[in-house]
């Protein structure tokens, strides 16, 4: 019996051979890690109710209390764009110059710019008291912890970003937890001055989305921070309305395989087509989004006010829902219109034209919401100047474009030639949210063949690449 080991080994070898075959066959069926397994688990947040035993009067008081235990947090937040409203120094892809841009110093297609209108714009600022240029960005107590961490659902911000009247700050402070969709959505779902105005792929639908509204947040109940989370309060993600590159961006391939379709032909598309192109077949599916904003029609007393068509203070709008995106090449850099640039007289000035073409390495075809506006500019210099609207003496109070622009020009130290004209501007909003379940993704015939939604010639192809071949590498 001494040599029993040998026989055991022989037997084991046979079994192992059989088992190995079985295991190999079974293992072959499943691919690499399923992206579902990469969804972070959320631990219940520590109950903070015991830490705030006394009533709290001001936001700063709350922040002080937070900092007692989280001494680094305010410093971290203060470095981010959520607080600074400008990003890091970036190379302007047009000029190569170093620029530092953000909401703070840019013109957009909606409420034009924040300069002179701080008090109302900074309702969405992650800080307290930014009412004018004198705001102290260096004071850690001015950081608003609650807007992102409130879990009571009762926190509201008023002018200058201060807590609105009637908010029970103690109750809010006791409720804090990690940010959920409605924390982020409180600002991002209402960008541009109202529900769904700005993005088209972000609106309150995503607070409680159904499966077909967004497969990540609907089917898998994912939170914004599951993709956008970063360490040290540095929330990941780039909005190409205020950024010129993707340095801090989030990508589908952070979780998903770059060639995930188990179909060679579809996978081949991923080299030149962004995931979003097929997987976001339409945006603003439930809540309409603003597609056109014509400031030149503002100030007409004879027209009735109606939030979705006309407002005397804002002019004329066009809202649409279930919109089919426009498709452009995009290499993840944009040409940003900076304050002082000249507009294209008689044409359309792009405020953030996506760069890239069929021949650009790394560029892909992306879906965009295209927003058109007609907004005031200084006819003499051919430049868009910030106008004061909500601020004192602003257009919304006095309906005087000349005065509004004079005030705005003075604030930014630019010269106003004296005559206000209107020029057409355009913004490109790349879409990344409202990702449809895969069975609602675009099918071949949606883009290729008769009636397809791609304008192949404009995208740089001679003809439909399905018939004529794709890109020459």
């Amino acid at each position, binding site marked *: 019996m001494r040599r029993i080991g040998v*026989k055991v080994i022989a037997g084991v070898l*046979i079994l192992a051979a*059989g088992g190995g075959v*079985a295991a190999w066959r079974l293992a072959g069926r499943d691919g690499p890690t399923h992206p579902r397994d990469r969804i972070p688990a959320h631990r219940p947040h520590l109950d903070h109710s015991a830490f705030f035993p006394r009533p709290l009067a001001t936001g700063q008081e709350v922040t002080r209390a937070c900092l007692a235990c989280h001494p680094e947090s305010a410093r971290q937040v203060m470095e981010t764009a959520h607080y600074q409203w400008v990003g890091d120094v970036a190379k302007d892809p047009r000029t190569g110059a170093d620029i530092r841009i953000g909401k703070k110093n840019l013109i957009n297609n909606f409420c034009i710019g924040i300069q002179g209108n701080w008090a109302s714009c900074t309702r969405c600022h992650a800080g307290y008291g930014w009412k004018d240029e004198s705001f102290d960005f260096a004071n850690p107590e001015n950081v608003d912890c609650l807007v992102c961490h409130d879990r009571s659902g009762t926190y509201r911000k008023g002018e200058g970003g201060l807590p609105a009247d009637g908010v029970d700050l103690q109750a809010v402070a006791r409720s804090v937890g990690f940010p959920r969709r409605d924390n982020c959505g409180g600002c991002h779902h209402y960008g541009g001055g109202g529900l769904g105005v700005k993005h088209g792929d972000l609106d309150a639908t995503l607070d409680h989305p159904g499966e077909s509204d967004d497969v990540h947040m609907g089917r898998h109940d994912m939170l914004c921070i599951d993709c956008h989370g970063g360490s040290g309060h540095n929330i990941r993600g780039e909005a190409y309305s205020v950024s010129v590159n993707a340095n801090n961006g989030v990508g589908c391939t952070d979780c998903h395989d770059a060639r995930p379709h188990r179909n060679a032909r579809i996978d081949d598309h991923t080299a030149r087509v962004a995931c979003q192109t097929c997987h976001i077949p339409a945006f603003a599916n439930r809540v309409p989004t603003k597609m056109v904003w014509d400031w030149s029609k503002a100030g007409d007393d004879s027209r009735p006010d109606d939030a979705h068509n006309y407002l005397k203070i804002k002019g004329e709008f066009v809202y649409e829902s279930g919109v089919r995106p426009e498709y452009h090449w995009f290499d993840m850099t944009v040409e940003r219109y900076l304050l002082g640039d000249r507009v294209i007289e008689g044409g359309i000035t792009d405020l953030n034209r996506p760069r890239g073409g069929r021949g650009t390495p790394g560029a892909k075809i992306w879906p965009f919401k295209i927003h058109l506006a007609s907004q005031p500019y200084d006819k003499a210099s051919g430049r868009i100047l910030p106008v004061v609207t909500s601020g004192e003496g602003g257009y919304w109070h006095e309906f005087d474009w000349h005065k509004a622009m004079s005030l705005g020009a003075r604030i930014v130290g630019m010269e106003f030639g004296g005559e206000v004209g209107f020029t057409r501007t355009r913004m490109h909003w790349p879409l990344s949210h409202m990702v449809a379940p895969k069975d609602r993704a675009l099918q071949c015939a949606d883009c290729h063949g*008769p*009636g397809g939604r791609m304008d192949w010639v404009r995208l740089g192809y001679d003809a439909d690449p399905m018939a004529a071949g794709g890109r020459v590498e």
Partner: protein
Amino acid sequence: MKTCWTMMAVGLVAWVGAAPAAAETGLPTLLPINEMHPAFFLRDAQGTPVEGRTDGFDLDRTCGDCHDTAYIRANSAHHRRHVAVDCLTCHLAGGREAVAGLPFDPVGQVRMPMAPPTSARCGQCHGLVHEGPQALEIPEALLLGADPGPLAQTLRTGEVYSPHLMSASFLNLADKGMQNRPWDVHAARGLHCADCHFAANHPQKSKWAKRRPAHLREDPRALSLAAYLKRPDHRFRAAACTDCHDPLQVHRTLPYTERHVQALACQACHSPALHAPALMSIDRTVVTPDGGPRMAFRGVESADFRAPNTWYVDGYRPFLGREADADGARFAPFNLVTVWEWVGGPQGTPVDSELVRRVFVEEPGDYRPEILAALDADRDGRLSDGELVLAGAAQGLIRDRLAALGVSEPRIRGEIRAHPVRHGVVRGDRTASACASCHAPASRFNEPVPLASGPLPGGVLPVPAESSLVALSGRHLQVTDEGLALAGTVDASGAYVLGHHRHAWIDRLGFGLFLATVLGVGVHGGMRVLHARRRGVARHALPGRRIYMYGIYERIWHWTMAGAVVVLLVTGLRIHFPGVWMGPSFQTAVSLHNVAAAILILNAALSLFYHVTTGEIRQFLPHPEGFVRRVVAQALYYTRGIFTGAAHPAAKSRERKLNPLQQVTYAGLLNVLFPMQILTGLLLWVGGVAPAALAPIGGLSVVAPVHNLGSWLFLAFLVAHVYLTTTGHTPTAHLRAMVGGWEAVEGEVEA
């Protein structure tokens, strides 16, 4: 007309199906249709240009300016007696009617947007083709049951050619959310009908259409464009799946790809289910209140309600039959439609459906009173579906009326027609890939196919249509309580489907052998136990001599062999009786079986080498002297001595491990059964990977039953072998020896 051909060749890039399809679906025209097709004069039958008007022109003369219309007419499947199409039906969006809206240029010529036929144009006559943004619905025209008609192909088989996802249709599909696949994957991939159904001399397709010698991968000589445009051969060819696809490059998870590809039409797996209403039976002997024939559909529920989009559609799996135009046994999917119709004349020519209609219906569209009186059994003034079955007096009435209308010898004929399913193709991940759908005793080869329910029209039992005889071969009719069905097994001569085909007598014989062995062993063992009890102290309880019986290698090869044989038997049973045995999947069982067989063969070869080179093979060779006497002695021992505790007639020793009976058994086992199993097993494997190599000896249908018989013998041997290990000095002495090498044998303990 000339222009369309130009375009066909030159405008390949533009493949413009685009614009006409768009026009038909209400989309704006997106592309210029055909810049290459020149403007031309419309000519009348005399060849004189007709100016300023778009009627009264003659297409043969008009198109004949450039194209050889006489040739096209003579070589066209679309210019047969009963087919009313002209050049414009297929090549101009909107057909002849669209000409009226086209402008003349100052010279008096007209520019027509000629184009190759789009799928939508083909669909006007051939079946449901659906493109464009609207959700797909089943047109009401389906209820008219017209054949030929715009939905004919859809009606016959349930095929739909559309890139749309099924889940996005209007149909009331079962499990609709899960049906997120296109109606046809080729449509979804942007293929048009004309991509596969092309003119026989189309220069672009010559690589498919032309026969070429084996040493050429491609024959670059092609008809010039000009020659082709002059005389396009309208006897269309259909591309085979393998013209584009190489099935051997995919199907990695399918065992024996070559054999599967040889034996099955691609659609057998890749058209797994059809979800548009497909006919089961159609009774053209009567006219329903809708004005059409009486129809029953497959895969739908509640089809009584006359709105096809509300029917609850489960879909049906097409039925396997033999493919008529392939050599050997190739199985392809079909829908079987039973048709009853009035025929007349000596040839049995079908009576025009309009004539039948006139017999039943008066001008405003109501039934004639005498017809109503004859058929309306419940006297409610309406004819229900159940009442619309001809028999007896009513049948006589219709027959007489038809005769009065000039039909000679009117009579009812029933035919079963097998319509091949070629579309509705799905990607590999959606196929009916469950092995057991074919590899099981009850499988697609012998599933009963319902043909009709209720009483048969005129009591006429249908017969297979002549063109369907091959598809239906092996099957026969069966009248059941529920109606008519097709029973029997698809004629699969030349094929042997593992798990489905087997010879019952071999299984019975094998199982009998197995059972007999088990019984014999049981009786023998029982008697040994009884005798031992009666004897009291068993002889083998006495201490014996221990000798080193089996060397290490002998034990390794023995147990390797044992393990392989057990795996082979278990997986073999799993393959032979799918669905009966628990255990690994069919596919895994096949793989395990192959691996174990490889191990066994290797092990056998190594041990043969060992036995030959060491001379151990002498163990197996009986000494001729006194062999018969010793065999008898051994047999007597097993039948008598073993019970009484007699000594083994042949003492086992290191030099002589096998008794004479074992030597006989192993001579058979090693010289007959082993080689036979290995050879037939290898042939089975060869038959899978290179089916042609096996054809000369009759294919799997010869080899597989032999292998099957051999495995029963192996099983019986295994039982006896295991039992006989207990006949040593002690019941476990042999086993211990084969494990540890040392065996206790009879005799004095050596000091």
